[in-house]
């Protein structure tokens, strides 16, 4: 299957950039501690995969983010269900989301420290914050823009309450729900790396990718640091491509993607 957004020009550009990196390091004679040559970064990357440390760091990061996104989704849906029944809940949701959405979740780190100490709970608190508001807002928009005709068709079929919700509201709002998840992922992915830089040591047995690049730098292992950065970029790109693929098979196929 063809990867979305992937073509031969892109490959040429990537190759050129990597060649430039390698050449610049070789020609300028910069210290390999400042900018390690590409080959040693790749070597470190492969070494990290071989001895499994890079893989377990990556998994630790992804796991944290997935857990946070799961919690965030549950909270966002619950808030929206409340907003569905009560106008006060709706106002609260919109106010909270409007206030907290623009606040970079990482700025909550000091507060998280204060409340939960240095540990998994703090990390989760920050991460959930980074994902939940974009989800909640998008889901809210999705539910409130379900076309009247579709709602009426559902009611004619005798659907009420949860059944109407499940068979009409949720699928009709899918483009927005999906956007919410995509934006949350983008926020969360940036936040999790940053949070791990700070929390990694204490958060769990494995500090994740953020902690890994921090430790590598501390040990003057620049290859490891750059290999970590490269991993972050590659995972990010892969996930984005995955999102596009899902979009193709669902909302694009259904002609609902232009919403």
């Amino acid at each position, binding site marked *: 299957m063809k990867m979305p957004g992937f073509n031969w020009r892109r490959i040429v550009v990537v190759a050129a950039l990597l060649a430039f990196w390698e050449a610049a390091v070789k020609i300028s004679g910069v210290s390999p501690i400042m900018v390690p040559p590409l080959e040693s970064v790749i070597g470190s990357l492969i070494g990290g995969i071989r001895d499994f440390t890079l893989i377990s760091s990556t998994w630790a990061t992804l796991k944290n983010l997935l857990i946070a996104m799961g919690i965030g989704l549950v909270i966002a849906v619950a808030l929206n269900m409340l907003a569905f029944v009560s106008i006060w809940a709706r106002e609260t949701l919109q106010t909270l989301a409007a206030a907290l959405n623009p606040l970079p979740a990482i700025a909550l780190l000091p507060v998280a420290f204060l409340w939960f100490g240095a540990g998994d709970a703090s990390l989760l608190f920050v991460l959930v914050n980074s994902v939940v508001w974009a989800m909640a807002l998008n889901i809210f928009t999705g539910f409130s823009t379900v076309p009247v005709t579709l709602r*009426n068709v559902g009611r004619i*079929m005798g*659907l009420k309450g949860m059944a109407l919700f499940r*068979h009409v509201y949720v699928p009709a709002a899918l483009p927005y729900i999906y956007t919410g998840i995509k934006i949350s992922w983008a926020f969360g992915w940036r936040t999790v790396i940053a949070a791990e830089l700070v929390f990694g040591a204490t958060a769990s047995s494995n500090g994740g990718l953020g902690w890994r690049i921090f430790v590598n730098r501390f040990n003057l292992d620049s290859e490891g640091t750059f290999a970590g950065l490269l991993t972050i970029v590659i995972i990010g790109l892969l996930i984005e491509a995955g999102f596009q693929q899902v979009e193709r098979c669902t909302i694009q*196929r259904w002609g609902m993607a232009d919403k």
Partner: protein
Amino acid sequence: MNATSLSLDGVGIRYRIGAKDFVAVENVSLEIAQGERVMLLGPSGCGKSSLLKVIAGFQKPASGEVRSDGRKITEPGPDRFVVFQEFDQLFPWKTVIGNVVDCIRLTRKLPRAEATSRAAKILEMVGLADYFNFYPHTLSGGMKQRVAIARAWSVDPAILLMDEPFAALDAQTRASLQDETVKIWRRARRTLIFVTHSIDEALYLGDKIVVMGRSPGRVLRVFDNPFAETRDQPESAELRHQIRALLAGNQVTAEEVQ
């Protein structure tokens, strides 16, 4: 005489616009027999669509009541299925056949296999045999309406309500969908209530033509139509003329109702 299927008794409909009450329909009483095809004909603003919404159960009348099979109507239900004018009444996330199968399963609790064969049969009947697995957004407006009609008939509703379903179609497609409506109606002979602003459409599809006027919306006169399922019969000219004159008398120009 057939059993009464639907009775409207002194139905009045009001809307609140700003601080003002706006009377959409005033004191409409109708008796509709089981299996009858009733056309609600009138200009924009005569309240024909509002009347349909009340029968469907989407709206409560300000006065009077509607009874279906003796029971007072309080909410929408599959026994009064509606085909809307909007093309986007199909679930876009379901295929053509998926839309019909889902509808059958949600309303009749049939097993999937049975629902699927039933849906296939009805879709074939309206000429959609080659489009089972198409998604609605890939279909033309006329085809979407075909699916919507098939979906409505698939649940075999006691009453089918059609709210200007062909108004946004070109003349040729409209004519062929009118034929389709006749064809399907003949099989089950369910009650059909059809809103239109076209005299031709009313004459072709209706056993009874309820001519409505506006300011306020009300029934001007109910005509029996012996010319259903025929087009441009010379004998229908007199009836056509009467309806047109009636509508014109309601300060509506003939052009406005076609």
